[in-house]
């Protein structure tokens, strides 16, 4: 990691020779490397070298470049496009190239003007640093050298950057420090290394780890259909494909609010401005039930909305995931929400088309699949350089044109993720949210995380699969119902349809704006499942013995089942047990009355 204020290479100067949208050709940049930053024109617009053709460099400019002329100067300092990593990232909101949006609004008002240059981190802010290593210690990359309380929720661990080994010469005493102060010095083989609280890291390069591991803990989201039916593991990858209006963003918001990761990185990539504003206004107010602190204290936001420059959209997901890796390396569990990866792919398409690349499917460049794979590969449960475990889960929304899942971005994404939450238009139309289809979705983490659920109930997987089977049976029967109507089916099948309807309304459908229903604890999920299963098993016996569906639906307690989720809070789940006893009692009574047993 390069230190924040390290002296840079001598700048190289060249000239613009042509401008085509955000792609600029420049000559005279001898010695410039691929992916180096270049400052273009008199405003010093930030760009990145993306192609070198003999003496000509192609630069993609991350800001609006209207007015840029051939002949304008281009300066490169020979440094790759990087993010500044250090304390102060949490609760901040950045654009795609990590410029702080709050700072921009203070400097130029409501609109983003071009050529604004602001440091991503506040260089004046004093952080209370507490050292945990002492001079004379042998230190290695990734080692924790001290701590800072970044927010009441996040202890920021200061690490020796990758590539630095040696003897700790000096470390400052506990006290207030800024990101520009030298905190420690390490005598390395190549000389004295001066360590600071913040440093740069190239966005397109994954940060090193010791090893990757197999994920085994579920990322609990409080969303019943996800946790119970299509769980994702910590360190896993998931995609949420869905046409417009199916609730991708609402699902992403619900996950960002309630999933139990330590750090959330929310990337608004080419989406609506008001949605980011929604996150910005809501998160400081929403309180995490687990620790009573506002959710903003664990969240970093990257906002490159649809009307902001397209190249910055392309880079925004790398900016986000690099910040995620920084916190993972401290030993945290990080969840990255990327909304939407389709807009990122479209940015890639737009730029590649301006470069004159030969297109593959639907105009997308042939390297689309490779880039997607590289991005999702940055997720995972790892042993960090310090030896602790850390993980990154990536949840990417996909916006297929026309809601058609056979398009390239959805297809390629589904190859690289292990969890697929397909959103269903029919469910969304009926305002059944989350509109995740239980027929088209899948997860590959079920067996990996079963061990965790077993702690709660040995039978978890069995129960889950039984309920899932009722839903699948319902799906099959619905084809018949469409042809002959439900009344023409045998009584037991009618009963199955009724139970499936109950699963949909009393379990799968979840209101993320209801104070109780918005977050459902694993215990409550399990108990609700058991209630439904009790109805199916006991009621099924009675129906098979000759009772009608109406006999069962007339049970006084049955109409309450659909309200359990929104009337019983997470800390009173014994009331669900009581309800179950009552239901079983009524079923027993029915059995005695009607069958005379």
């Amino acid at each position, binding site marked *: 990691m390069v230190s924040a204020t390290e002296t840079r290479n001598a700048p190289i100067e060249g000239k613009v020779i042509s401008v085509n949208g955000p792609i600029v050709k420049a000559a005279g940049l001898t010695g410039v490397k691929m992916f180096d930053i270049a400052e273009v024109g008199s405003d010093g617009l930030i760009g990145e070298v993306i192609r070198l053709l003999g003496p000509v460099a192609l630069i993609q400019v991350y800001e609006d470049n209207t*007015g*840029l002329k051939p002949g304008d100067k281009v300066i490169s300092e020979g440094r790759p496009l990087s993010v500044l990593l250090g304390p102060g990232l949490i609760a901040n909101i950045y654009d795609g190239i990590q410029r702080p949006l*709050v700072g921009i609004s203070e400097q130029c008002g409501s609109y983003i003007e071009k050529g604004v240059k602001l440091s991503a981190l506040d260089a004046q802010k004093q952080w209370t640093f507490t050292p945990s290593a002492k001079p004379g210690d042998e230190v290695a990359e990734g080692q924790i050298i001290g701590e800072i309380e970044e927010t009441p929720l996040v202890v920021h661990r200061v690490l020796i950057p990758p590539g630095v080994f040696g003897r700790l010469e000096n470390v400052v005493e506990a006290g207030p420090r800024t990101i520009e102060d030298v905190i420690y010095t390490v005598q390395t083989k190549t000389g004295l290394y001066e360590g600071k609280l913040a440093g740069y890291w190239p966005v397109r390069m994954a940060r090193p780890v010791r090893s990757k591991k197999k994920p085994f803990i579920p990322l609990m989201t409080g969303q019943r259909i996800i946790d119970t039916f299509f769980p994702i593991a910590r360190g896993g990858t998931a995609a949420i494909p869905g046409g417009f209006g199916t609730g991708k963003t609402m699902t992403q918001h619900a996950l960002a609010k309630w999933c139990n990761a330590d750090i959330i990185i929310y990337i608004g990539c080419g989406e609506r*401005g008001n949605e980011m504003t929604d996150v910005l206004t809501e998160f400081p107010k929403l309180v995490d039930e687990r620790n009573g602190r506002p959710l903003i204290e664990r969240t970093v936001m990257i*906002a490159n909305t*649809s009307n902001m*420059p397209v190249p910055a959209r392309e880079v925004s997901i790398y900016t986000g995931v690099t910040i995620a890796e920084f916190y993972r390396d401290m030993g945290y569990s990080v969840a990255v929400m990327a909304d939407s990866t389709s807009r990122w792919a479209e940015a890639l398409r737009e730029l590649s088309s301006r470069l004159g690349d030969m297109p593959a499917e639907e105009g997308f460049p042939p390297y689309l699949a490779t880039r997607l794979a590289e991005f999702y590969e940055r997720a995972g449960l790892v042993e960090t350089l310090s030896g602790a475990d850390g993980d990154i889960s990536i949840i990417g929304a996909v916006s297929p044109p026309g809601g058609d899942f056979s398009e390239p971005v959805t297809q390629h994404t589904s190859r690289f993720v292990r969890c697929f939450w397909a959103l269903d238009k029919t469910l969304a139309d009926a*305002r059944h949210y989350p509109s995740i289809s239980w027929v088209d979705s899948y997860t590959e983490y079920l067996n990996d995380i079963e061990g965790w659920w077993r702690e709660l109930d040995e039978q978890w997987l069995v129960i889950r699969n039984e309920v899932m089977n009722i839903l699948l049976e319902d799906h099959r029967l619905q084809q018949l119902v469409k042809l002959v109507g439900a009344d023409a089916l045998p009584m037991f099948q009618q009963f199955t349809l009724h139970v499936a309807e109950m699963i949909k309304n009393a379990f799968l459908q979840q209101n993320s704006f209801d104070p109780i229903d918005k977050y459902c604890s694993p215990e409550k999920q399990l108990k609700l499942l058991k209630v439904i299963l009790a109805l199916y098993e006991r009621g099924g016996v009675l129906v098979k013995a000759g009772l009608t569906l109406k006999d069962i639906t007339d049970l006084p307690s049955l109409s309450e089942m659909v309200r359990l989720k929104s009337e019983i809070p997470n800390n009173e789940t014994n009331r669900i047990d009581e309800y179950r006893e009552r239901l079983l009692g009524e079923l027993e009574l029915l059995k005695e009355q009607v069958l005379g047993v």
Partner: protein
Amino acid sequence: MCCEIEYTTIGGISGPLVFVEGVRGVGLGEIVEIRDGESLRIGQTLEVDEDRAVVQVFEGTSGLAVKGMRVSFVGRSLEIPVDRAMLGRVFDGLGRPSDGYPQVVTDRRMNVNGLPVNPWSREYPRDFIQTGISAIDGMNTLIRGQKLPIFSGSGMPHNLIAAQIARQAMILSEEEEFTVIFAAMGVKFDVARFFIDSLEESGVLTHSAIFLSLADAPSIERLITPKVALTLAEHLAFDEGMHVLVILTDMTNYCESLRELSSSRGEIPSRKGYPGYLYSDLASIYERAGRLKGFDGSITQMPILTMPSDDISHPVPDLTGYITEGQIVLERELFNKGIYPPIAGLPSLSRLMKDGIGEGRTRADHAQVAAQLFASYAKVKRIRSLAAIVGEEELSDLDKIYLEFGNSFEEEFLSQGENENRTIEETLEKGWRMLSILPQEELYRVRREDIDRYYIPSSDGGD
């Protein structure tokens, strides 16, 4: 200006594009003046090389020749004068007066391309606008600062609905300054005339500005029209503190012009020949709606677009739906049944509704009533498709009640007069009357206390 260089070195003309050779020091997006004899046309640079510039001519290139044309570069982007004196006036698609009166005198000029709003500086829209239309107020509530398009098909009454919204939403907010900006892209004169007459009848024309790039204007001009209209809207909303409703019709024509331009530039097309950047381009228009922290005004956008062959997955409605905060979809089936407004119950959506309704804004039970109406109507649709196969007689009693609910919902709740202005109370009351057709046990999206309060038990032995 005397000192401008005029180029006569035209390399070629293709579609709306002119290629100028031997130019020096010309910037991207600069305004270009093209003189041909006495006539003056305006253009903009799309691409600049060391000695060549590609110019897009807004008025089209018909009649231009390689020889005899004189081109000069102005050195800045397209700007228009903005002032509240522009209200009550009619302009052409480039913002020049076309009502016979002179240009507005002002020293305030704004770049038509605008700048992206900092997401941090946005104020989340929360203020309910009562349009007086039950299908919108009750189920797809419009919020001040929202961008809510109407997805229509040819022949359907989207213009009537937009005009009704403009009239009825304006009457309500007399204490605040409310204004309508109407931009027509490639529509016929009678559509524009209808809007002007409708605004005039309700006496709001003097508070409106009208930009017309009609079907007979050069198609490339349409690409600037919405930007010009929104530039004035930004001035009125954020400099003058007004609440501006911008109606843009028809966005499909705008997209077709963009496709035309892209194809003359030889760009690689994506779906249906539209350029790959259609999404970003539409976003640069639609995202110019909203509210800003520290400012009183707001821009509410209501773009209208016709879906070619009623196909909602066509790139124009599809990409629009991904950017806008919901959509009002008109349905051919309802239209054919004679229901006005034929607003489709299920695919219509308002994303900002959740925060603009409820206690203190509309009524505490609003969200639940809307959710229940959606859920029950979805069931009606399922039962109808079943009835089409097995026949209505074979349906269960409950299913028959649902059908009755569905018909009443369409005929009494959705349907209303072109000048009927319902309050939100009336709309919700109608909603409960519809829900009361169903048995109580079927109402699982509404709270029990609301059922106790609003549900009307069938006491008069209806059946």
